[in-house]
């Protein structure tokens, strides 16, 4: 669902703050890290436990398209600037398709992300894949342009498995709808 889990995102500065003030927990020692723009976004422990992308031994992958840069199994992939949930790219689907046997929700929220390859902003539709339990891999929560639930068309806390056979959430995609107009 473009659901949930705050269990992530600290800024680089905040991370240094943890190291400074909570060193007795050895916090940084257990964090996997992903890069989002210039800021370091460490995955917190629950995210790390579910991560088969960032911080794992798996080899990085690409889209094969130089105009679509980055690794879709990591949280820092440019399309994921407002995603919240398990990345379908790690769950049997891709950044724009659902895993076998699940169903893509026709309803969702849309955000805008900047493609570093051409510097242009694209409208991204964060459609959820539904009908099987939580994938549990590659959890990712980024909240650019996210607004509260009372602005549902701009919210990633809602389980968007709506209008599907099952409301049960499996993972999230990030489908390019087109160029954003300013």
């Amino acid at each position, binding site marked *: 669902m473009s659901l*949930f889990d*705050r269990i992530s995102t*600290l*800024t680089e500065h*905040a991370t240094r703050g943890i190291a400074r003030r909570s060193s007795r927990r050895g916090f940084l020692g257990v964090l996997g890290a992903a890069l989002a723009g210039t800021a370091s976004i460490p995955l917190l*422990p629950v995210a790390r436990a579910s991560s088969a992308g960032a911080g794992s031994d798996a080899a990085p992958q690409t889209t094969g398209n130089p105009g679509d840069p980055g690794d879709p199994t990591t949280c820092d992939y440019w399309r994921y600037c407002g995603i919240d949930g398990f990345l379908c790219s790690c769950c049997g689907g891709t950044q724009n398709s659902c895993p076998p046997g699940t169903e893509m929700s026709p309803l969702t929220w849309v955000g805008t992300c900047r493609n570093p390859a051409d510097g242009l902003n694209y409208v991204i539709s964060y459609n959820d894949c539904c009908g099987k339990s939580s994938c549990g891999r590659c959890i990712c929560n*980024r909240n650019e342009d996210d607004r509260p639930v009372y*602005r549902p068309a701009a919210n990633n806390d809602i389980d968007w498995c709506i209008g599907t056979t*099952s409301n*049960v959430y499996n993972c999230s995609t990030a489908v390019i709808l087109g160029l954003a107009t300013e």
Partner: protein
Amino acid sequence: MNTGITMIMRKIMQKIAWLSLLSLTATTAAAEFEPEAVGKVETLPATYPDHWVMVHDFSFFHMMEGEIIITDPLAEHLGSQYKGMIPASFTAAYARSKKRNEHYVAESFFARGTRGGERTDVLTIWDPATLEVSGEVIIPPKRITGMPKTTMIGLIGDDRFLGVYNFTPGQSVSIVDLEKRTFVGEIPTAGCAFLIPNGKRSFTSICSNGSMLTSHLDREGKLAGTTKTPVLFDPDNDPIFEAPATADGVAYFPTFWGNVMPVDVSGKDIEVQGTWSLLGDGDEGWRPGGIRPAVADADGMGYFLMHPEGGEGSHKNPGSEVWVYDLAAGKRLAKIELENWGLTVATSGRGDDRLMFVTNVDMGVDVYRLSTNEFVHTLNLGGTTPFMVHGAE
């Protein structure tokens, strides 16, 4: 031949075993046990101590298996911290009435489990002493599912009614009569979300344009009328969070950028009071954030989970400090530097026994004593994602 030897050997071994057993019983004094009854099941006190809390393990990785864990947060031993558990299926919403002395769980079930099938939404009523179901009311299969907010469920009319927020994405509130344990009806709240109970028998929803809609119920829980405010805040540039810290009839809504919008909810029609800022000199860049960034305690103090270097998109970041306010005066009393970064803040207890709870980023629940603002210990209750803690509210 071989078979005969084997049988002889087996008999010898049996004799050795018997002799060993006799020897053991002859030389070892038995511990004294009364025969114990089979089938014993524990119960809890009908009235919980004020400092106990209900920890909602959201079970983010297995959402059908959410749990509400009744917890004594000051107990020193693992066995006495965990008092019992109530199941809470599929991103459930939890409420408790002290007046009616009941737990309420709004939850969803699917006939074919995670692959769907017919959906049934239920308000399940639990007895606090036996932790057994004491009743259930079927409600429309429309309740919102997603990350928990305290305003997804609410007690209305001196706990006579309970409302559940629906999102299909059409928006409405289902009303349950808790006295009759029946579903009363569905009240449309088009364009407006959640319910914040107000006045004698009303509830208020937050609208997408920054206004608020108040729905008034009659004595039977049916819609008697509505009131809508003008635009109160800017939902694009400085939106209020979905759930306030409520004390003494005033709901204090923090905003993404660190302001507080107080809304008087004591009367039939709500009244917005003057906005004030959480930030003072030298606080630039600090913002409220997390899963549940604001809560009040039983004495009317407010607690806000704060993170540094905030900006666009940081409103769900964990916080490193909790800032404490005299809410009525809009005055900061303290900054509590947290033992661990946290995502949710909650309180319980009264007076000198007040406690604060912070669900930390390791998914433990950190306990602080508010009389001294000192960290007590971390509760690890066995759940995986304890996103919400319910105490004093």
